[in-house]
């Protein structure tokens, strides 16, 4: 029980972080690429491509000795992968701005540089979480449904909180740092949880 609650909570935090970062994406890029529609086009494209690759990768990774410990490590990696948005964004966007004259492709390249890796990593979360919770094929659909529910509800909250409140309460870098902290904390909690509750992922089904 505590085990599945923990995995659901982690999926919630993952969904929240992804969309909070996507909302901030427009704000991060506007000083260099403006707020024209193609900037949003670039950001959404990069997030969609990265998530699709993340899903595929997550599914593959779940085949190989899945564990809560590895899940925790993934969250730690996600937390670290957010940090370049705080510290490397200005030089990166400046370089792209100087190198690429067409701001459409400039914004696409910059969005790829800033968001691709962390979003791929966060895309791994959902399919991997399904594997951690599924114990029988009979219940697999129900588990996947609950996970999508939790992580997408988290995404909705991430969008709303960021666009309505966080930008009014905090500076952008503060929000990003908080998100990195939340993801990192999720990783630590998962690692601690793994040593207290133990691993409960079902063994691979016998052929």
């Amino acid at each position, binding site marked *: 029980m505590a085990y599945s609650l923990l995995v659901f909570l982690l999926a919630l935090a993952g969904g929240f972080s992804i969309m909070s970062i996507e909302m901030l994406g427009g*704000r991060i890029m*506007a*000083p*260099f*690429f*403006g*707020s*024209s*529609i193609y900037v949003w086009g670039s950001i959404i494209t990069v997030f969609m491509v990265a998530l699709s690759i993340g899903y595929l990768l997550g599914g593959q990774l779940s085949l190989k000795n899945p564990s809560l410990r590895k899940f925790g490590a993934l969250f730690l990696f996600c937390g670290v992968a957010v940090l370049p948005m705080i510290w490397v964004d200005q030089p990166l966007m400046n370089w792209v*701005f*100087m190198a690429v004259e067409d*701001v459409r492709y400039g914004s696409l390249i910059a969005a790829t540089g800033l968001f691709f890796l962390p979003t791929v990593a966060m895309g791994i979360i959902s399919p991997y979480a399904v594997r951690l919770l599924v114990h029988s094929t009979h219940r697999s659909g129900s588990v996947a449904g609950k996970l999508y529910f939790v992580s997408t509800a988290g995404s909705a909250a991430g969008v709303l909180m960021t666009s*309505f409140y966080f*930008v*009014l309460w*905090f*500076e*952008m*870098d503060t929000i990003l740092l908080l998100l990195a902290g939340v993801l990192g904390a999720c990783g630590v909690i998962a690692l601690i949880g793994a040593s207290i509750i133990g691993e409960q992922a079902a063994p691979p089904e016998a052929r």
Partner: protein
Amino acid sequence: MKRTLTLLICAALLAGPAQAARIIYQKPSLYQNVTVTDDGSRICMQFASRGRFYSQQSCQFKDDPDRLVFEYARLAFAGLMINPEPSRVLVVGLGGGSIPRTFRELFPEAKIDTVEIDPAVVEVAERYFDFEDDENLDIIVKDARVFVKQAGIMKRKYDYIVLDAFNGDYIPEHLMTKEWLEEVKAVLADGGVLIANTFSISDLYDNESATYESAFGWIRNVKLDTGNRLILTGNFEPVSKEDMLARAERLDSERFEPYGFTLRWIAENVHDEADWDRSARVLTDQYAPANLLQGRKSGD
């Protein structure tokens, strides 16, 4: 049934703008709905309809197209008391094009760049407001932040800049930060003048004023009782109302009359005192919730 409908239509017409304006053209664009109306004496461009309430963007008198309809547009020429013969002008935000066109007519030798993000606005300005680009009047369809950053890299300089990019309902937040104004300052020549149209009546008034003051060191209000407020600043020593009145005396000319302003009238509306909360938070690229602040009134 038919009668009720007729009554309803009549009621709707009566509830509309004071002078029943006829919609003569509508063009939805990526950014807004551009609507052109004709109220008999004026052609107007309007954005973002909220029910039947429109925000007037730009109007033109049908029988006197030179005359600037809106007082804020006339006040935008306050900078002529600082720089009486501008040679490189930048106007951010086109609307019906009345401000760039006035510059073009008053200063035929000047090079004027006008930046507008929405191609639909350019199309409507050309079709209904006799706006035409030519060798000295360039229209650039681009996000102003990108344009100014590129101009800065190319070391281009302007001696008169007008910022008029807000459409009343929505503020492009990246065009109301200290960093943006510093980029604008960098393309402003020594002695160059900046005029910014602002319209805030909410809490944002304080933040916006503090942001301009922090980027330029000082600002002057050119302000009417009607709520129109323009900010006057630039790369020159601060001027007082007294200075402006003296300059108006010296520089006023009959050639401004067709456009509906005198420099003296503008100078009379300059205010030396700061009427904003100077401790208000400066907006930056990191903290720019302009639209959220705009929705707030003091005490909220």
